[in-house]
């Protein structure tokens, strides 16, 4: 599994497009936050963490779309699954590689809290919890995108389906749905909203139910991807 994890990482690191995508994400994330910081006039990272899910909406499907779909299209999945590797190992290695790449991208934004700390005192637990929550959100989004990548041989289809699913997950607790849906349904949907759970982390609160939500959600979609590999007919 470690070998496959390294191979997947090298795919992005030996490829200029990998670096371009990572740097573009970091530039956008930093710029979109910094451009409003003096307008808002508040030294807080909250708006940055609230912005991240919207950036992930494109970034994670773009990174994940090829991860299984391309193996299916080129039939290299047959090579992998006729090596002494289980389906679970294949999916986990790919998942961890993607989490590492997005983790590196998030690391490139660490300059923001460091810079802000020079302007005014930052509440460190809030920053740590915010990054931790963002990483959990990343894992959840990656597993969901990997599930869609495992359903098709076409990367573009995987990309579009992932964006659609992530968009729906992201907007279910926002004002958009609040204005359309009845209050009772809205209250129910909030339970499944990653934004709602991320909000706890952004406030510096690590709640067990939010941890459970992200971890179980990630495992469910990884499990579904494994099931798809096991079918292979």
């Amino acid at each position, binding site marked *: 599994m470690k*070998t496959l994890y390294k*191979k997947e990482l*090298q795919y992005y690191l030996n490829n200029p497009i990998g670096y371009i995508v990572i740097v573009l994400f970091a530039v956008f994330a930093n710029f979109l936050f910094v451009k409003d910081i003096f307008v808002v006039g508040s030294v807080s990272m909250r708006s940055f963490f609230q912005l991240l899910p919207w950036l992930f909406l494109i970034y994670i499907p773009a990174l994940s779309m090829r991860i299984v779909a391309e193996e299916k299209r080129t*039939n*290299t999945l*047959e*090579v992998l699954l*006729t*090596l*002494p590797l289980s389906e679970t190992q294949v999916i986990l290695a790919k998942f961890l590689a993607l989490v590492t790449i997005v983790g590196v991208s998030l690391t490139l934004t660490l300059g923001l809290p460091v810079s802000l700390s020079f302007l005014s005192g930052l509440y460190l637990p809030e920053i740590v919890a915010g990054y931790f929550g963002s990483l959990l959100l990343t894992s959840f989004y990656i597993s969901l995108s990997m599930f869609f990548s495992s359903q098709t041989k076409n990367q573009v289809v995987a990309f579009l389906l992932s964006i659609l699913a992530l968009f729906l997950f992201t907007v279910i607790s926002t004002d958009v749905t609040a204005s359309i849906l009845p209050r009772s349904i809205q209250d129910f949907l909030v339970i499944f909203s990653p934004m709602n759970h991320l909000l706890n982390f952004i406030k510096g609160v690590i709640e067990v139910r939010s941890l459970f939500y992200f971890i179980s959600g990630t495992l469910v979609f990884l499990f579904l991807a494994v099931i798809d590999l096991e079918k292979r007919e």
Partner: protein
Amino acid sequence: MLMILLTSVTKRFRNTLAVDNISFKAKQGEIIGFLGVNGAGKTTTMRLLLGYLNSTSGKISIDNLNPLKDRIQVLRNVGYLPENNPLYQEMKVDEYLTFIAAVKGKTILRDTIDQVGLEDVIKSKIENLSRGYKQRVGLVAALIGNPQILILDEPTSGLDPIEQEKIRKLIKKLSSDKTIIFSTHILSEVEDVATRLIIIHKGKIVYDGKKPRGRGGVEKLFKKLVK
């Protein structure tokens, strides 16, 4: 030593019967030429042997192990060259072979690289290689770890006659301590390489036995059975 045993194996894909109640055994040292027209069930049978596909009914044993339940253990001792030889095109030859060796937990045999003639392109990207070289990469990957069972799906497909001859010689050389099953459309290849012939047609084994003697014997038998 008995390495492969298939008993009344059937594989159905929804409404298509790909493999229909086939049985055969293979011993160490045998080179079995698996012959059949496109869609006869050769690739499906090979995938069943590897545990890549699950049979609808019947029993398969590889070195006394069940390829589905003991898939990882079985695959440690099997080398496989898939149909059309899918490879990671973005990798260099040595990177690809090192990757396969690391997953198998084995080392690459430098001898095999020399025998197959890959040393000149070992640092080249796979996507830049000719079809012949790509086929050799796939073959070396299958041979990593010196597996006791080799399953080769059309190993000489797309190669020129000189390269075909090289691969045939290598297969013959490897056969002494291995069980080799290879599929092909080239009838003369079976005549040249195989010690035993299995002809599969519409999912059924229509011939399992020694090669017919004499030049063109395989062709005559094949045409007679597969009309």
